[in-house]
């Protein structure tokens, strides 16, 4: 699948921002006043910035509001609703923290729930697709949630729990890669089933329908740069997990914590790039490609 920068930025940054808002929502004693303002501002910049970035890949962004209508069947529509519910609830919760030094625990809990639901609905947009076997697993949702909550913990300054969550997220990432590599073969879709010609013999793509490229090939048969996937996985894991863990285990310093966070985000960006670049859509089979 084509790794569109707008989607990679959206899912990474909004995941991180919503992770931070989640921790602010469930905190036993949330920050108040200016500190709260700073935390909420960062959370909203990331979450809203990500959501705005996601509209950049639309062909007709001016009609984006119509995406709220089909929540009964569409995960993309559900995501829109959950995002609004999370941002509005957390906004009111944050307002009371910043200006009235009051923490409404129930409101925070509801907001935190919608933050996680937003990340979950985002992940389901991908996990629901039978056409992309690598994504089509419940592990995709677990991975998105784990990365969001771990990143949020780092961003909100929770070192101890952040360390544990980082390790868990890294482990899930590893398992997701391992299982993902086998998903296409397991899906049972191959050139034989795609063409229905398998009963005659081995099928080979002889001629594509056109001499140039097309939307399908650009969007769904993105094979460029997959050859560096192994190296990029190691780089991603190093930045997302190993370096932050080492930095956090060192005696605490603000510089170290910021570096750990930046490194983690860079690692997640690489991982998210791979998420798309390595994903193979079954339509590639019609072109004799994966």
């Amino acid at each position: 699948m084509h790794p569109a920068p707008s989607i990679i930025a959206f899912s990474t940054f909004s995941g991180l921002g919503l992770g931070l808002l989640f921790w602010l929502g469930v905190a036993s004693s949330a920050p108040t006043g200016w500190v709260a303002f700073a935390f909420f501002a960062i959370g909203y910049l990331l979450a809203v910035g990500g959501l705005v970035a996601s509209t950049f890949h639309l062909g007709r962004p001016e009609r984006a509001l119509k995406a709220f209508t089909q929540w009964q069947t569409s995960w993309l529509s559900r995501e829109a609703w959950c995002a609004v519910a999370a941002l509005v609830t957390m906004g009111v919760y944050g307002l009371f923290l910043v200006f009235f030094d009051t923490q409404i625990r129930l409101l925070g809990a509801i907001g935190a729930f919608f933050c996680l639901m937003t990340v979950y609905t985002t992940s389901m947009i991908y996990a629901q697709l039978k056409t992309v076997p690598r994504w089509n697993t419940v592990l995709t949702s677990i991975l998105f949630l784990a990365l969001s909550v771990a990143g949020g913990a780092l961003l909100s300054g929770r070192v101890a729990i952040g360390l544990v969550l980082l390790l868990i997220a890294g482990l899930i990432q590893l398992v997701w890669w391992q299982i993902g590599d086998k998903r296409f073969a397991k899906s049972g879709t191959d050139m034989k089933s795609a063409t229905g010609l398998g009963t005659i013999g081995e099928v080979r793509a002889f001629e594509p329908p056109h001499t140039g490229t097309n939307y399908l090939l650009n969007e769904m048969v993105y094979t460029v740069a997959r050859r560096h996937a192994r190296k990029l996985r190691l780089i991603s894991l190093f930045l997302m997990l190993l370096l932050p863990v080492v930095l956090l285990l060192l005696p605490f310093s603000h510089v170290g914590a910021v570096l750990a966070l930046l490194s983690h985000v860079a690692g997640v960006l690489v991982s998210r790039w791979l998420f798309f670049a390595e994903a193979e859509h079954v339509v590639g089979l019609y072109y004799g490609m994966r």
Partner: protein
Amino acid sequence: MTQLPEKTERKLGLVIDLDTCVGCHACVISCKGWNSENYGAPLSDQDPYGGDPSGTFLNRIHSYEVQPEEGPAQLIHFPKSCLHCEDAPCVTVCPTGASYKRTEDGIVLVNETDCIGCGLCAWACPYGAREMDKAEGVMKKCTLCVDRIYNENLPEEDREPACVRTCPSNARHFGDLGDPDSAVSQLVAERGGMDLMPEQGTKPVNKYLPPRPKDQLNEEVDMLAPLLAPVAEEPKGFLGWLDKTLEKI
């Protein structure tokens, strides 16, 4: 509405005969022509006369080489367009309700004024039947020529999809696949019509007729055959005289 109808009154669709398709691409051109001049946004091209041409098509013809265990390889031309699936995954993922499946005839359509061009429906389709139009920013797909098949301004013989109307080898058939007595349904039953990617669970309405088995050469051929003297004889009579005379000139 992106909820799929539980049942459609009819199941209009195509039956494509892989045995008779000659891969001439006439259906591609007639489809592009009709759908650039009639219903919806025209199918645009990008850089059509330049070095890197591309464009939107609703129907594309692949060619496959199939190698049986014994005997020579076969070349099979393979037209592919929207299969108007009963369980169309492209419809349910649509966030705006632009994609829908009609209850009356099962045609899957896009309401272009509602489409935001997010591309999720194209991701959900295993067959590559949907293509985003770069000029218009909306998703385009086969309409089964909904503006032809019910069009009373057209002569009756033209009230079928443009690709079917134009096919010179009669490899494309149009009809109601929900009616077991229709000509297309009987054709499917007779020739063992098949679904593409049945494991994807989309329940396509369009069916493909597999190529008929090729003739087999069963007589024994003398292994010395290539070494035998040619049977062709020198021309006699008038032709012989003409041959010799022309040789001399």
